C-alpha cells in the first residue's frame, strides 16, 4: 500500500491503542476526592458532577456556621463552623439537591453519573 495509507492506518492504530489504555486505567483507579467551598453564603461549585463512588468534601470558609442537608435527607451534616468539613460518598447514580438549613437560600446540586 502507498505511504499515505500506511500513515493513516498507523494513526488509527495508535489512537485505538491509547483508548484501550485509558479505559483500563479508569476502571482500576478511584475517582479523586472533590471539594466544594462554602464562601460568602454560597456553595462553589454550585453544581458538581461526579462519578459514582466519589467522595465530596464541603469546607466552610465563612465567619458563620453553615450546614449541608440533602433535600430528601440523603445526607445531613452537623453545623459546620469556620474551617469545619463534611464529607459524603455518593455511591448511587442520580441528582442530589441540597441546601444550608440555617440559610436556606443557599442551594447546590451534586450530579452523580
Amino acid at each position, binding site marked *: 500500500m502507498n505511504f499515505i495509507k500506511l500513515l493513516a492506518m498507523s494513526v488509527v492504530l495508535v489512537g485505538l491503542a491509547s483508548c484501550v489504555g485509558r479505559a483500563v486505567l479508569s476502571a482500576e483507579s478511584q475517582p479523586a476526592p472533590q471539594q466544594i467551598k462554602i464562601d*460568602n453564603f454560597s456553595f462553589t461549585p454550585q453544581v458538581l458532577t461526579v462519578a459514582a463512588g466519589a467522595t465530596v468534601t464541603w469546607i466552610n470558609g465563612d*465567619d458563620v456556621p453553615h450546614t449541608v442537608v440533602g433535600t430528601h435527607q440523603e445526607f445531613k451534616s452537623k453545623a459546620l463552623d469556620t474551617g469545619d468539613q463534611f464529607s459524603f460518598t455518593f455511591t448511587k447514580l442520580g441528582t442530589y439537591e*441540597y*441546601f444550608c438549613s440555617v440559610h*436556606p*437560600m443557599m442551594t447546590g446540586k451534586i450530579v452523580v453519573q
Partner: protein
Amino acid sequence: MADIIRENLNPDGIDRRGFLKCMAWAGTGTVCLLQGGVLNSYALGSTSKRLLGGLKSDLSFVQISDSHIGFNKAANPDVTATLREAIAKINALPTPPAFVLHTGDLTQLSTPEEFDALDQELKSVRTGGIFFVPGEHDVLNDNGREYLARFGKSAQPGGWYSFDHSGVHFIGLVNVLNLKAGGLGSLGADQLEWMKRDVQHLKSSTPIVVFAHIPLWTVYPQWGWGTDDSQQALSYLKKFGSVTVLNGHIHQTMQKVEGNVTFHTAMSTAFPQPAPGAAPSPGPMTVPADQLRGVLGIRDVNFVRGTHTLAVVDSTLQS
C-alpha cells in the same frame, strides 16, 4: 432642637409620610412621637430628655438582639464586652424597663456553654423580666431542643407564646425552624393556627406587639431576609389599630409602615451586617475598631395608652 412635622394625609389618623421622614433620623438619637395622628420629633439632647421625662408613658420596655455569644472573629472579637455595654445602657435609662425582649441569635452555635454565658451576663440587667425568641443560630443541630429546654417552659411546644402587659398584647413568634430549601423564614401551619386563635377575641383597640427573629416583611430575599408565610400572620391582625413588629437578624435598623403595621428591625449588640446588596453576602461586616460601637445598640420603646402613641428610640453604644 425641636421640630414639628404636620402632614396628616390620611383620614385614618396615621401620619405615614411624616413618620417615615422622622424614622430616617432614628439611630442618630432622635425620638419620634406619634400623638393622635400628628408626628413630633425631638433630638435627644438635654432639653428633650427633660421633655421625655415629663411624658407620661404607660409602658416602657427594651429590645436587644443578636448577641451571638460565642462569636469571636474579626467583626468583633469580644461580643461579651459589647453586650455588657448594652446592658449598662439599659441600666442607665431614666426609668427601668418593665422587661426586655431579645429577638434572637442569643448564641453563635447553640452550645450549652454559650447559653450559660448569656444567662450569666443577663443577670445584671435591671428589669422585671426577659423574653426571648430564637434565631437560626440558637437551633443548630438539635432542632432547637437546647433552646426550648431553657426558654420554652411557658411557651407552646414549638416555642411561640403571647402575654399581656399594661393593656398591650405581645406575641413571640418562631420563624427559624423547619426551613425549606430555597426559602426564607417560616412560621408554619401550627403556629399560624395558634396565632389566629390567640388574637381572635381581643378588642381591636388593643395595641399589638409582635416579635420574631427574621423580619416579617421582605427586606431582601436574596439574603433570606424575609418570612415566606408572614402575610398570613399579618392578615390576622388587620382589625387592630396599632400593630408594631419588632425583628432582628439583619443587624441594622430599618423601618417600614404598611397599613396599620409598623415594622422595626434592630441593631445587634455583637457585630454589624452590610446593607442589602452592598456586599457579596450578609455575613459579619468588619468596620474600623473605633466605629464598631456606633453600629451596635439597643432600642427603648414607650407606649402611652389610648392615643396610639408609640415612641421608639434606637441608640448606639457610642451615644
